[in-house]
């Protein structure tokens, strides 16, 4: 999983029918210190996240194992809203 910050939303009227009523958010991967890294991505939200929140994103075929995404054409799903990141090592 990767850490990311939600930076926006996506609206798409024409889309795969299995994506109807899915919430799509634009996320920017970050490191544990909060520094942006890598490119933006679009992820399906399964936990009611919002802009500005730090979230956990699962990628690849595992994204389809998130609640409600079975057999959906997705490769990134938001599966957690991060409260706290502790880096000690």
């Amino acid at each position, binding site marked *: *999983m*990767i850490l990311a910050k939600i930076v926006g939303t996506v609206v798409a009227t024409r889309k795969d029918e299995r994506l109807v009523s899915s919430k799509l958010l634009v996320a920017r991967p970050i490191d544990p210190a909060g520094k942006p890294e890598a490119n933006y991505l679009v992820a399906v939200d399964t936990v009611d996240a919002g802009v500005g929140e730090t979230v956990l994103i*699962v*990628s690849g075929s*595992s994204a389809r194992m998130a609640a409600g995404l079975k057999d959906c054409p997705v490769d990134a799903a938001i599966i957690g809203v991060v409260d706290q990141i*502790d880096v000690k*090592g």
Partner: protein
Amino acid sequence: MQIARVIGDVVATVKDAALTGHKLLVLQPVTPDRQATGRTLVALDAIGAGVGEHVFFVRGKEASFPFLPAETPADACVVGIVDHWDVD
């Protein structure tokens, strides 16, 4: 699988129901001479690893296999703690 050092953990109250009770670890992949390489990532813990330990982890859909038959949305999972490793 890749070797990494556990450098921290993540707390998330709101999360997928299948993740309840699982520990989320922050991993830093390392080279054979223990130098950090590549981006950090968050992985589930299947074996009770902790901060500071060297571990190996699996990526992709296989990361959810340790928790079968539960369908856990995981793309990275710690599956072993390294006692020692040698590279010639």
